[in-house]
C-alpha cells in the first residue's frame, strides 16, 4: 500500500462518512479542484522561471538570481506585482468580452489538466474519451485569444487574434491526426488505458517508424498550438508589439501568460502519455513503487517542455503564409500518410512489443 493513495482514500472515506453522498461527492470535487488549481498555478509560475533560466543558459546569461535563493522566488514576486497592478483597458473596448477573454484561456488550460494520469490511480477525472476531451478543451482556448484581440479595440491585437484563429484552427488538425495515429495503436481513448497498453513498451517503440513521425508532427503542431516560437505570430514581438494581449495589464495579462505555460505543460504531458508511457518507468525499474510514477511523468514532461524551449530560443519565426504552407502542404499530407502506415502496421501486427 502506498502513501499517496491511502491519503486520498482516507479523505474520500472520511468525507462520505460525515455527510450525505451527494454533498460529499460535490465537496470532494471542490477539494480536488482547489488542490489542482493551487498546484498548477504554482507549477505554471515555476515553468515561467524554468523558461527564463533555460533561455538565459542558452544565451550565456545567468537568468533571474536576485529574488530568493538562485532566483527561485522571482516569478512569485512577479505574480504578486501583477496582482497588485491596476487593470487598465482601452476606452472603446467591449468591456464584457474584454474581461471575459482571459478566463476562457486560463480555465480551459486548467480544465485539460484534469484528465492526465499522473500515476496509477492518481487522476482527477478518468473519462473514457479522455483524448477527445483534451482535443475539445484545447480548441476552446483560442476563443479567449480571439475575444481578447477583438474586444480590446487595438489593431495590433486584432491582427494577432486573427493570426491566432488561422493558426490554431490549422494546427488543431495536425495535433488531432497525430494523436489519432497513436490511438490506432493503443486502441483506446481513455488515457489511463493508453498508459496500461504501454506496459509492453512505450508507444513510440511499439509503433516505431510511424510513431516517431507522429511524434515529430505532434511536437511541431503542439508548439504551434501553444503559440510559442517559432510559431509565436500571435504575439510576434517584433511585428505586433505584444499581439493579442497588447491592451491587457495586471492579473488579466498574467492569466494569458500563465495559460501559455500551462498549455505548454499540457502539450508535453499529452506527448508523454501518448508516446513515452506516461507514468511508467523505463523498463519497469520502479514498478513496485507506484507513487514514483509522478516523478517519471513530470520528468518526461519536463524533457519535452525543455525541447519546446530549445525550439523557442533557437529558431526564427515563420511568416503567416509559411505557417499555413507548413501545415497544409507538409504536415497534413504526411500525417494522413502516416495514419495509413500506422493502420497497416497495426493490421499486419508489425508492432514491437516486449
Amino acid at each position, binding site marked *: 500500500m502506498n502513501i499517496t493513495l491511502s491519503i486520498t482514500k482516507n479523505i474520500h472515506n472520511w468525507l462520505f462518512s460525515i455527510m450525505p453522498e451527494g454533498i460529499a461527492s460535490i465537496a470532494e470535487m471542490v477539494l480536488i479542484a482547489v488542490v489542482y488549481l493551487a498546484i498548477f498555478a504554482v507549477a505554471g509560475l515555476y515553468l515561467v522561471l524554468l523558461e527564463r533560466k533555460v533561455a538565459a543558459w542558452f544565451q*550565456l546569461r545567468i537568468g533571474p538570481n536576485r529574488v530568493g535563493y538562485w532566483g527561485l522566488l522571482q516569478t512569485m514576486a512577479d505574480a504578486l506585482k501583477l496582482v497588485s497592478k491596476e487593470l487598465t483597458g482601452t476606452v472603446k473596448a467591449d468591456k464584457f468580452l474584454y474581461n471575459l477573454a482571459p478566463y476562457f484561456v486560463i480555465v480551459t488550460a486548467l480544465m485539460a489538466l484534469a484528465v492526465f494520469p499522473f500515476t496509477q490511480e492518481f487522476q482527477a477525472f478518468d473519462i473514457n474519451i479522455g483524448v477527445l476531451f483534451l482535443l475539445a478543451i484545447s480548441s476552446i482556448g483560442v476563443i479567449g485569444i480571439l475575444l481578447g484581440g477583438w474586444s480590446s479595440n487595438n489593431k495590433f491585437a486584432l491582427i494577432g487574434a486573427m493570426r491566432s484563429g488561422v493558426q490554431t484552427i490549422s494546427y488543431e488538425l495536425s495535433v488531432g491526426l497525430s494523436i489519432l495515429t497513436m490511438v490506432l495503436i493503443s486502441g483506446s481513448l481513455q488515457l489511463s488505458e493508453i498508459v496500461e497498453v504501454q506496459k509492453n513498451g512505450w508507444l513510440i517503440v511499439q509503433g516505431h517508424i510511424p510513431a516517431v513521425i507522429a511524434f515529430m508532427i505532434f511536437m511541431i503542431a503542439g508548439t504551434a498550438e501553444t503559440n510559442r516560437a517559432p510559431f509565436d505570430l500571435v504575439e510576434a514581438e517584433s511585428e505586433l508589439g505584444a499581439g493579442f494581449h497588447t491592451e491587457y495589464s495586471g492579473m488579466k495579462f498574467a492569466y494569458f501568460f500563465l495559460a501559455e505555460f500551462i498549455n505548454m505543460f499540457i502539450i508535453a504531458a499529452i506527448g508523454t502519455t501518448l508516446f513515452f508511457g506516461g507514468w511508467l518507468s523505463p523498463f519497469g525499474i520502479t514498478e513496485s513503487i507506484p507513487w514514483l510514477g509522478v516523478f517519471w511523468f513530470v520528468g518526461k514532461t519536463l524533457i519535452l517542455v525543455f525541447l519546446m524551449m*530549445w525550439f523557442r530560443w*533557437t529558431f526564427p519565426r515563420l511568416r503567416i503564409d509559411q505557417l499555413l504552407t507548413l501545415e497544409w502542404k507538409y504536415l497534413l499530407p504526411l500525417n494522413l500518410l502516416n495514419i495509413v502506415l500506422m493502420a497497416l502496421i497495426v493490421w499486419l501486427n508489425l508492432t514491437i512489443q516486449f
Partner: protein
Amino acid sequence: MSYFGNIYRGIKTLLTGMSVTGKYFLTSRKGAITQQYPDNRDTLKMFDRFRGEVVMPHDEVNEHRCTGCQKCEIACPNGSIEIIWDRQVDPETGKKKKMIDQHIYHLGMCTMCGLCIEACPTDAIKWAQNFENSVYDRSYLTKVLNKPGSKVKAGIED
C-alpha cells in the same frame, strides 16, 4: 522526391541551429557574458583612459594647476565649463595675475568629447574613471572642480 528532400534538408538545418545553442547550453559557463554589476563593484576596474567625468587633481597642499586661461571653456562644444576668474595680486611677485575663483563643470551637459582636456596647456584637468554619476537632483551635476581654498601651483604659467 524533392518534396521529401526539402523536408530532410529543412530538418537538418534546424538541427544544426539547435546544435549551436545546445552546445552553449551544455558546455559554456552559465552566465558567461553577464556582469553582476553592483556586486562586482570591488573588482570592476575601468580602463585608465575611460572618460567618466572631468576632474581637477589637487596635490596634498591643496594646489591645482589651473591658471584660468579659459582654453577649456572655449574648446567645450556645449558650454559645460564655466570659469569664474579674477585678477588678483600675486603675493610673491606683486604683479596682477589671472586667478580662478571657480571652475564650474556641468556634468549633466558634458558629452565626454575630451576636447577640454586636449586643449588644457597645463594639464590641470583630466578624466576620472568614475562612472556612477547618477544623482537625485540635477543640480548636483553642476560641480566646482577646484576645491575651496585651493590655489594654483607656483610656477605654472599658460
